[in-house]
């Protein structure tokens, strides 16, 4: 469970988030939406401790994140799988090695790593491209590799910031289906997007921000 409690984030005289209260339930899938500059990315960055609130606190499973020491931050971040808009794959290594990165970081054995990487690639339908360089893949395929990397270490939470921003509607819909599939096996999913036509067809909570404030939450 993720709880934002009166969270504000100011950049100079610019308030990116203003006294935000928000709860994401365990096992839920929710969309975060709002105009550009509404504070979506800021919210996700705060959740990943890439940035700290100016005031307020974020609780994850009841634990206040403000109490997490910087030494423990990497371990905290490993509880999240992160998908970026521009996928952020590393073109100096194969698809396999990209997906393996979180496992190498966590110190998995090579055999364990290989097995899990193949399982993750299988789930996103790219097992046949394991040894390819990600640069030769299409945009949709690259994003699926990014998702495989995000889920390979079986995180509690899956966080995505505009994951379909660069994709056409057909591919976007496929990507969202993937997120739903991971949600169905128990992963809590939070996706920031402004693709309203797409998400309004899906039956998940939609959280809308406006100028850093909570502007509305649809029922599930």
């Amino acid at each position, binding site marked *: 469970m993720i709880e934002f409690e009166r969270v504000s984030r100011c950049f100079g005289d610019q308030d990116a988030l203003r006294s935000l209260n928000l709860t994401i339930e365990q096992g839920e899938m929710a969309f975060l939406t709002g105009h550009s500059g509404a504070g979506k990315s800021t919210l996700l960055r705060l959740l990943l401790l890439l940035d700290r609130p100016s005031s307020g606190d974020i609780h994850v499973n009841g634990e206040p994140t403000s109490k997490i020491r910087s030494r423990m931050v990497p371990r*905290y971040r*490993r509880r999240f799988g992160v998908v970026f808009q521009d996928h952020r794959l590393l073109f*100096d290594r194969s698809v396999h090695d990209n997906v393996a990165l*979180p496992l190498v*970081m966590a110190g998995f054995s090579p055999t364990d790593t290989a097995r899990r990487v193949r399982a993750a690639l299988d789930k996103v339908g790219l097992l046949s491209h394991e040894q390819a360089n990600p640069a030769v893949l299409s945009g949709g395929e690259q994003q699926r590799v990014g998702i495989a990397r995000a889920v390979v270490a079986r995180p509690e939470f899956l966080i995505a910031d505009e994951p379909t921003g660069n994709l056409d509607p057909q591919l976007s819909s496929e990507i969202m289906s993937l997120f739903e599939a991971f949600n169905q096996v128990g992963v809590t999913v939070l996706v920031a997007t402004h693709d309203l036509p797409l998400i309004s067809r899906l039956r998940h909570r939609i959280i809308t921000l406006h100028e850093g404030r909570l502007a509305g939450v649809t029922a599930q």
Partner: protein
Amino acid sequence: MVWLVVAISLALPGAMLLTLDNLRPLIPDLERPAQVSVMLAGVLDLEQAEALQRELATWESVEDVTLVRRDEALAVFGEQTGLSGLLMSLDHNPLPHALLVSSSAPRTDAALSQLVEAIDALSGVDRAIIDNQWMSRLKQALLATERWGIALGAAMVLGAILALANTLHLAVDARREEILVVRVIGGSPGFIRRPFLYTGLYFGAGGGLLAGVMLWVLSLWIAGPVNALFVLYGSLGQIQGPGVGYPLALIGLGAGLGWLTSWAASARYFSRLEAS
């Protein structure tokens, strides 16, 4: 290229230290009593000379006094110069009696000159000379060279650090994208840093190894002429090569520098990252 820069920066101070190591044993033990040679007036006979010897021996600043009789002195002089025959033909010995005075501690330059002055003032003394003035000059010269070597060495090592820092900066920059991703998905600073530490070690230790090789080649190259010089000066010394100690120290130094530099380079990068 980086190796070469690091190697040269380390080999130069290494060569300097090695040179000093070679020169140091050539200076006889500097801690032995400093000696004052006292030439007595030619008119003094042996008895008067012995009286003077006894008097000097009672001085507090004097440890020991040896009398060198004029005939002894002549014999030694003749032997050393190979002019014995010629000297024998002289009808009288031109050398005076002499005293060799060892000063007692403290053997500072000031105390020694004071002693020389006091002896000089005695009647019956022609001249008192400090035996090892040249030696203390040499000692000072070596000390100065050593300081100079250390300063130059520090500058060269700084050069090595800059070369390494530049390389690591480029290495970190080339992996900027990877660092950003790994940080977000929970890579610890240690994990992010590891490849750069290896890069630093690789270039640092490699440069040190190359410096060791350079030192070997250099000392082999100059060994011939220098050993010949030693023989000419009647020294039994042989040039002392860098052995294993020097290359090992250079590799260790290079590795240490590489490690520290990469640590600093990545730390600086991370702190900028956290600030952004």
